[in-house]
């Protein structure tokens, strides 16, 4: 009834027969008012999820700290509920801000799992929606569309990417306003059924909250995702390649490092996403290099990405070697 009370946790077994508890002493020696935090923490198995996040996500220290805080808060709320203390269900709606490719969607997915593990959402799935999924084309189209998405997200997490597109101040008859009103209503009335996470660029989200104060006040956790630095991006690259059974040698590692140094100062740099795209293109070049080379190759060569595969990128083309010093100064 109340989420998933763990039958092994002491508070659950001893508080259940409360009217008779003072007549028949509880079998467990420990009095009810003592709660073993360590055991509760282990039982909730959040540590595994947090470790997973630590392992799989590079950098993002402020985000991880924040997730740890939220997880502790949720666990305490759960323990308070089990101990029969007055608990308001904590507000869980969140806002993720940061530049593209900083891991907002990935973290949202993990967040859904954490919330599910702690029993704050019943299913723990993630529904990703953008303006197109929520806002209709004509009068009366928006409400059913938004409702469809909300219904699908029930029991899980609704992730609204680039939420500021919902609000278009330049067009006062824009249907986005209708979707915003429905979402606000859902965030207030259906708090037990779903958690809403809004995501987008920091500055535009701030403007969005400025013009829609209702959202700002309904969101408890504002988490800002920092950009990755070059070493973190290198680690991400290695992780990605290891997952796909490719590898870099010393030479190509240096090439990739130089590539990142140049790419990071160029426009439209999208952090981890740019790294993934660069690696995909390098794999493409590796494949055509191997095919055009012909002959007999080893399995080792199939997995190795050469420096040449990376250095063919246009990033190296439009900056001659002499300009490299200047670029690295810009890149910091």
């Amino acid at each position: 009834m109340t989420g998933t009370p763990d039958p092994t946790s002491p508070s659950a077994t001893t508080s259940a027969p409360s009217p008779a508890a003072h007549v028949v002493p509880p079998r467990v020696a420990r009095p009810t008012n003592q709660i073993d935090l360590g055991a509760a923490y282990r039982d909730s198995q959040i540590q595994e999820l947090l470790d997973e996040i630590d392992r799989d996500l590079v950098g993002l220290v402020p985000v991880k700290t924040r997730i740890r805080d939220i997880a502790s808060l949720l666990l305490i709320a759960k323990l308070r509920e089990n101990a029969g203390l007055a608990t308001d269900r904590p507000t869980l709606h969140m806002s993720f801000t940061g530049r593209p490719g900083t891991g907002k969607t990935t973290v949202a997915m993990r967040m859904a799992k954490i919330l599910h593990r702690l029993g704050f959402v019943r299913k723990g799935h993630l529904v990703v929606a953008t303006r197109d999924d929520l806002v209709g084309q004509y009068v009366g189209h928006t409400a059913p569309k938004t409702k469809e998405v909300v219904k699908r997200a029930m029991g899980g997490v609704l992730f609204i990417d680039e939420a500021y597109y919902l609000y278009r101040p330049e067009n006062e008859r824009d249907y986005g306003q209708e979707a915003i009103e429905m979402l606000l209503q859902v965030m207030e009335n259906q708090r037990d059924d779903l958690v809403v996470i809004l995501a987008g660029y920091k500055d535009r989200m701030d403007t969005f909250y400025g013009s829609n104060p209702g959202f700002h006040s309904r969101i408890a956790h504002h988490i800002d995702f920092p950009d990755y630095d070059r070493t973190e991006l290198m680690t991400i690259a290695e992780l990605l390649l290891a997952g796909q059974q490719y590898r870099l040698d010393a030479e190509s590692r240096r090439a990739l490092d130089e590539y990142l140094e140049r790419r990071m100062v160029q426009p439209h740099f999208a952090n981890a996403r740019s790294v993934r795209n660069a690696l995909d293109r390098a794999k493409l070049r590796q494949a055509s290099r191997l095919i055009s080379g012909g002959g007999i190759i080893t399995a080792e060569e199939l997995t190795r990405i050469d420096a040449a595969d990376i250095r063919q990128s246009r990033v190296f083309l439009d900056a001659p070697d002499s300009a490299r010093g200047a670029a690295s100064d810009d890149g910091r």
Partner: protein
Amino acid sequence: MRITQGTFSFLPDLTDDQVKAQVQYCLDNDWPISIEYTDDPHPRNVYWDMFGLPMFDIRDASGVMLELKACRERYPEHYIRISGYDRSPGRQTTALSFLVQRPTHEPGFRLDRQEASDRQVRYSTHSYATDAPAGERYGRSR
């Protein structure tokens, strides 16, 4: 006359919590839910009207309950049923179907006898409610 039909016809009417649990059971089995309503209580009336869209992709029963609430508000004096469709046999198959709302007053049926040739008698059941046009049966209908 209390009309019963569907999976739990032998039970008293389900409470909302029980309805929700049944809906969740359907969703856990990957059976999409549809909400249907009618004001024609004849037992052979199988084609009820669907309320809203069929609900695919829903994982949690509260989404369905939201829609059911809307349907009850819109049709407070209609019969409403919930059906779960099992598509795994490769055809549209109702796996489970039960009433979740009935009108406050159900006038029941009368038996009509039609005398046919050769002293044959044909029987039919006629619902008193259907004497009024659709939408005006069972008192108020919004």
